[in-house]
């Protein structure tokens, strides 16, 4: 499958980047080695030629610049394989004979110091030549001394050495590749262990991931374990909730059935009322359980679009209460997102607005904003509001809001429930227009709850 081939593999990426890098670096080292070798041998030959020129100069000074008394030709050629030329006035001594044309031109050339002749002609030498030319005055006679060497032989030695280096480099590249491969395989071994641990988990042999993960994976493993904890807790909770619900609902159902099965008994008004009450009980219990199961609470990866959702809710309430004005006040963008579960945010805004809509005389307003520490929403209306002493108790835990203040009731209980799950803060105050002002701040860094 082409898609499977393109899938990222840590091993492949490492091999694909490290191996070419190793080869290129080794090649570069080999190339630099060649350059340095060349430079070094040239420097060496140059220094030797310079020494020999100095030796000849010394000899000439000793003999008083008399060429006939100088006996160095065979010595130079035999021992050093060097050619030399000495010119005193018009006199010449050049060795060997066949290099004469080249050395003559060098004598005529005014340049001194080391000279590299790239392509010597007419002397039967194919490689490069290095010469050293020096001028001096001995016994009041101008003297030119040149010593030259054929670099060809040296060059051959140099090349074979360079070739050997190439062979060694290739061996080293091989070793490097092996080392890289071992390194990658070793460092990826924990991933394999992780795979096995996950497989164990899937098969039910383990309930948590216990493998010793390397530091880079420890977070991942911790999060996976946390997620598993959360799932377990959720399962336990919903199982308990269902058991409780079924238990609490079965009794009223049994009671109603009993009455309906009793053919002798007549359905008088008080009995009807009693049955209706039992059914209302069932409904209430269902509602409460539904609500609890629907709130997600803070969860990683869940986002809401506050402005878009607020718009829909305000529009809907505006349709339901055509005589009242529902307004949105915010600087946030339509596409702005909050890390709150969508349904939860709908419940927060919907219930607060629904209450405001019931109590407002003309106007209810929802304000959305953000601070450095939290996400804020506020609903205010211009209704009668609630008494100051009730204000303090609104939204406090343990107070059955639905029983305390009709109208601002059941909805607020739901809101308080969600606020608690998010570790948010809800405050009530008297709105500037007289009604109730409810403000909720959801903290930015809610630790993801494990329920």
């Amino acid at each position: 499958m082409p898609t499977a081939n393109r899938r990222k593999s840590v091993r492949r990426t490492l091999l694909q980047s490290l191996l070419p890098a190793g080869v290129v670096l080794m090649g570069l080292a080999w190339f630099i080695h060649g350059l340095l070798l060349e430079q070094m041998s040239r420097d060496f030959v140059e220094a030797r030629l310079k020494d020999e020129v100095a030796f000849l100069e010394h000899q000439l000074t000793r003999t008083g610049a008399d060429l006939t008394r100088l006996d160095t030709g065979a010595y130079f050629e035999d021992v050093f394989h060097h050619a030399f030329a000495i010119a005193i006035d018009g006199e010449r001594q050049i060795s060997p004979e066949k290099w004469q044309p080249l050395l003559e031109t060098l004598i005529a050339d005014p340049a001194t110091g080391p000279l590299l002749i790239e392509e010597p002609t007419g002397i039967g030498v194919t490689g490069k030549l290095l010469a050293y030319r020096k001028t001096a005055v001995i016994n009041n006679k101008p003297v030119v001394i040149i010593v030259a060497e054929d670099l060809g032989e040296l060059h051959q030695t140099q090349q074979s050495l360079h070739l050997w280096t190439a062979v060694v480099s290739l061996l080293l590249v091989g070793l490097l590749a092996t080392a890289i491969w071992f390194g990658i395989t070793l460092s990826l071994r924990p991933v394999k262990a992780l795979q096995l641990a996950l497989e164990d988990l899937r098969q039910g042999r383990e309930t948590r991931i216990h493998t010793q993960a390397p530091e880079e994976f420890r977070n991942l493993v911790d999060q996976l374990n946390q997620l598993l904890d959360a799932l377990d807790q959720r399962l336990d909770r919903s199982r308990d909730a269902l058991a409780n619900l079924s238990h609490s609902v079965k009794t009223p159902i049994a009671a109603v059935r009993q009455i309906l099965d009793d053919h002798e008994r007549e359905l008088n008004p008080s009995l009807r009322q009693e049955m209706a009450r039992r059914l209302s009980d069932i409904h209430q219990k269902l509602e409460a359980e539904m609500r609890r199961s629907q709130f997600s609470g803070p969860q990683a990866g869940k986002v809401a679009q506050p402005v878009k959702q607020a718009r829909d809710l305000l529009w809907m309430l505006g349709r339901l209460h055509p005589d009242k004005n529902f307004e949105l006040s915010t600087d946030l963008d339509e596409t702005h997102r909050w890390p709150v579960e969508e349904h939860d945010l709908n419940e927060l805004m919907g219930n607060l607005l629904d209450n405001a809509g019931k109590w407002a005389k003309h106007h209810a307003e929802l304000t959305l904003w953000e601070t450095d520490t939290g996400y804020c929403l506020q609903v205010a209306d211009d209704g009668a509001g609630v008494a100051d002493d009730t204000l303090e108790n609104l939204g406090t835990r343990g107070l059955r809001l639905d029983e305390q203040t009709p109208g601002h009731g059941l909805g607020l209980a739901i809101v308080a429930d969600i606020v608690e799950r998010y570790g948010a803060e809800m405050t009530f105050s008297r709105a500037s227009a007289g009604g109730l002002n409810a403000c909720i701040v959801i903290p930015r860094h809610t630790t993801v709850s494990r329920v």
Partner: protein
Amino acid sequence: MRLLLVEDDTLIAESLNRQLTAAGFTVDEAGTAKQAERLGQQEDYRAVVLDLGLPDGNGLDVLKSWRSGRRTMPVLILTARGDWQEKVNGLKAGADDYLAKPFQTEELLARLHAIIRRSEGRSNDLLTAGGFVLDENRQYLTLPDGADHALTGTEFRLLRCLMARPGRIFSKEQLIEQLYSLSDSPNENTIEAYVRRLRKLVGQDTIETRRGQGYVFNADS
């Protein structure tokens, strides 16, 4: 008053039928989406009670097909699901109100009378300018590309004011009259904020600023 009752649960349908008749309605009953759709298109009803969970389809689809067929009778939807998104979806589909099951008959009757009263004298007014359609009843803006946008009260009033006379300049003072606000007395900054919000919906060039004079709805852009 003729009323269409769309409900597939026979117990509820029978009981509601009786109580609605007692309250003075002439009730037609439909138990399936297909039947409901046909009746709604053919007959003239003063109001409709529509259950969303029907055996052969969703009540919302029936409602949408009525509305797209220009049937404007008030509709009260009955739903077993009471969450906010469900309610928003119901109203967006064209319902006038919703009632969550289980409900009491008195509540149903009160809501029915309320939506009937509200629908009286209501005409299906559409304000059109430059490819934009403003549904005055539903406070809905339809963009030239067909996308719908729900508007808040102030947004709607400002846009209605501007769209009613495209090309005419409205000063900020004139537009301020369209504003209600809880907190401070509305000022020119508030107008600017609302115009910015509206421009995000209709496009930058559609509402033009005339420096020192005000704003113009540009129907040609």
